């Protein structure tokens, strides 16, 4: 082995440490602060005393509702747009480039801007106020580009030979989409949905301005509801004695994200594929 290679092999441990050490420290610190509070009861009880006691059951419910609204909008519109891109648009055409740029910009826009927009448009102009609906809609805008990109990749990945065969058999476009294209791209589309869930779960700034703070179990999507990420922020920043619960909620959230990660692994046969968040 060349000498330079031997050096490189050893020195490479430095960046490795620089990355792994803080992360393990962070997870350890979270565990230390929050593990005392974690239990099955924590997941099943509602918070009481402004969140200083009890668990996070109503928050899990609110978070679930917000995700449901978000996906209910983002999945059909995103899938539709992805289908449009794969069926009607040639890669490299002007439409492709313009739409692609718009979507990439949407993806790169800072989350506070979505918060501002969500507050101005959904909460005030549309009169939805602080509600799960406002929050879900604002989040759907954020995950839309992610959904579209993943779905588009999956759709374009369906072999050309299938398409040619369908054309040769004079299958209608709708038939082709419904019976061949979608089923074959299903796992890739599912990955897109799961990635969107992951991104939505991690969002805080947007929800602070749209879905609000209320701890109670929401009765409908017009109610305000507190998401897990907002709860972490509130417990850490606003409620006296809330640090342990903030850490415990953070652990729950991280665990959820790990689960999501594992799900993606199952669905995507290639590990560490190009489908990056």
């Amino acid at each position, binding site marked *: 082995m060349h000498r330079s290679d031997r050096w490189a092999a050893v020195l490479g441990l430095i960046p490795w440490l620089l990355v792994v050490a803080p992360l393990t420290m962070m997870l350890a610190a979270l565990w230390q602060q929050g593990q005392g509070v974690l239990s099955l009861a924590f997941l099943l009880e509602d918070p*009481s*005393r*402004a969140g200083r006691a009890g668990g996070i059951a109503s928050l899990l419910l609110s978070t679930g509702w917000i995700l449901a*609204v978000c996906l209910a909008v983002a999945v059909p519109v995103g899938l539709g747009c992805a289908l449009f891109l794969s069926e009607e648009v040639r890669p490299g055409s002007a439409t492709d480039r313009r739409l692609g740029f718009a979507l990439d910009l949407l993806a790169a826009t800072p989350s506070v801007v979505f918060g501002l927009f969500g507050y101005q448009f959904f909460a005030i102009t549309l009169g939805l106020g602080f509600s799960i609906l406002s929050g879900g809609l604002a989040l759907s805008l954020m995950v839309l580009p992610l959904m579209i990109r993943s779905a588009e990749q999956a759709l374009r990945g369906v072999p050309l030979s299938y398409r040619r065969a369908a054309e040769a058999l004079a299958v209608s476009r709708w038939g082709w989409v419904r019976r061949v294209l979608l089923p074959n791209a299903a796992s890739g589309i599912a990955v897109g949905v799961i990635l969107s869930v992951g991104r939505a779960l991690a969002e805080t700034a947007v929800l602070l301005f749209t879905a609000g703070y209320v701890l109670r179990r*929401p009765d409908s*999507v017009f109610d*305000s509801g507190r998401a897990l990420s907002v709860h972490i922020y509130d417990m850490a920043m*606003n409620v006296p004695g809330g640090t342990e619960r903030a850490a415990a909620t953070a652990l729950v959230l991280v665990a959820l994200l790990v689960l999501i990660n594992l799900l993606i692994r199952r669905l995507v046969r290639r590990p560490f594929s190009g489908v990056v968040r």
Partner: protein
Amino acid sequence: MKGYWGIVALTAALAACGQTTDKLVLTGSSTMAPVIAEVAERYEAQTGVQVDVQSGGTGRGVSDVRQGLADIGMASRALHSDEGDLTSFTVAQDGIALIVHRDNPVSALSDDQVRAIYQGSTDNWRAVGGENRPITVVNKAEGRSTLELFLEYFQLENRNVQADVVIGENQQGIKVVAGDPAAIGYVSIGSAEYEAQAGTSIRLLPLGGVAARIETVNGKRYPLRRELNLVVKGEPADAARAFIDFAHSDAVADLYRDHYFVPAQR
């Protein structure tokens, strides 16, 4: 596909039956939000009326009540003279305390010393009898009533304040001071006492010779006191009135004490 439409239908149905009859929306002070949220919990359990408590700050609470975006506003200060169109109901008393790190040897500061520290003319603890460390000045962000009251009491203008760290909520201030032996900040007495009792490494400094404790706020000896008010526009509607009365009553006095506030005398 069928599954998807099923979900949409379910959501719509659930959304439709979510339109409840009575609902109160409260926005305002982040100091009051946690305790009022607990009051609201009890009120809901008793009457079934839904009460939503959002944060947003005193200024927001006042403005929302005026615009009709909220039924009741939470204000952690007395109303200003130009807020005559609003009516306020004091539910508790709080104070604003100066906090330093628990290990800081300085035990008291005069008003002039505080002013000098916040304006930057005194920048080392040594000058006020402490160790040789540069002072970390913690100030609150604009728009918070805690900031307003603090500036008013010490007759400072925010543009003259030389801050080293600017914080948003009370808890952030407490965490910053607890992590920095040379820091000084100011937060609500309620939050500070709670945390100090729980073991967080902060200490409350006396003001004007009076110890910063909830008892002295109660006895009206502590100089920097503030009212915690529920405000409405004009006269309160029935639903709002009922809640305000409940928030005043003995049934919830223990909640205020729990948060280290002084429940208002009825």
